[in-house]
């Protein structure tokens, strides 16, 4: 069994940023993504998801290391200053290299 190293980028952000993030993912070359609603707390206050204005979403994307770098850079310049958001990357391994 051959495992190929990839990057998993995890983004937690306010729900209103989701469309913009998804667009960015497509632009940087991700082949897919996964997202789900979450609650949270952070420097910009609680997000109890009681209404959409205070809703949060977690977006996970597996991609090539170079693409991950590009993605994080864009997040840092265009998104971090504007949205309640965190992003981090970690190492994962997949079986089908071409899929990502």
């Amino acid at each position: 069994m051959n495992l190929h190293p990839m990057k998993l980028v995890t983004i937690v952000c306010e729900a209103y940023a989701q469309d913009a993030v998804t667009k960015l993912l497509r632009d940087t070359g991700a082949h897919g993504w996964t997202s789900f609603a979450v609650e949270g707390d952070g420097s910009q206050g609680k997000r109890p998801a009681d209404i959409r204005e205070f809703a949060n979403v977690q977006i996970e994307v597996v991609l090539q290391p170079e693409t991950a770098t590009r993605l994080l850079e864009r997040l840092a310049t265009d998104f971090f200053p504007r949205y309640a958001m965190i992003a981090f990357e970690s190492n994962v391994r997949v079986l089908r290299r071409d899929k990502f």
Partner: protein
Amino acid sequence: MSILDAIQANLLSPAVLFFALGLIAALTKSDLKFPEPLYVALTIYLLVAIGFKGGVAIAEAGLAKVWLPACAAMLLGALIPLWTYPVLRFGGKFPAVDAAAIAAHYGSVSAVTFIAATNYLKAVNQPFENYATAFLAVMESPAILVGVVLGKLATSKSGARDMTSLKAAMHEALFGRSIFLLVGALVVGWLCGKPGMAKVEAFFVTPFQGVLALFLLEMGMVAGRRLEDLKKVGPFLLAFGIVMPLLHGCLGVWLGKLTGLELGGAILMGVLAASASYIAAPAAIRMSLPDANPTFYLTSSLAVTFPFNIALGIPIYFEVARWLYS
């Protein structure tokens, strides 16, 4: 009935009491919480029901009666940001983008406040034009667009990028879920007319007031959770959130009279002018003016103006209208 009696009657209605109960739940940190899908479901129900009812009313009354006050309402919504913006910018010393964002919220409208007002009128046996929902429908978007343009003008640097986010704001203002549901159900109701109403009345009309009471319980919790942000917004915005609705309420009532509405309809136009959006506007503004601080516009519209209108504003506009029409 004096204005104090009117207020008292309003305060003892199930809708307002449940709203208060929601506030208490938030303040006592009860673990009561409506799951988000329930909130969404209640919103969908209320918007579809009010839209459908309004559409049937338009079919009954005929467009001829509706168009003039509807145009006036639309115009009023579009103009409100033009004077609230300088008030916030120069009176309140808010950054331009925040002033524009808040102005958009106060020019746009709150469907739930409108619905609560129709309930109030029913409770005090005040007839009103059912087609007033049309005013609600046309007042939601214009102010948002005006506010976005104001904000863009004040902050724009890179033209191209602004146009795309302006387009996004327009799409949100016209096809966003709340406006889409409301206008869509209005058109459906208008096409169906009375025979269609007969079929769905038992779902969209009969239990309506009870559903509203339950929804206001949730809204009380939502507003209550924002109360701690009141300190952050400062006394100016607090006063703004009460004074502007009073002004706009009178303006709306007067405009209603001018365009030939009956007492009930004029009250509703006053309520619409006085109300501030907290569903459609935040979504559009966050997308097109992401640099505006949501704490300002959400707290003032959700934790100040909304409760004020629900508890005190509606009976006040009612009395104002009665005085104007007498």
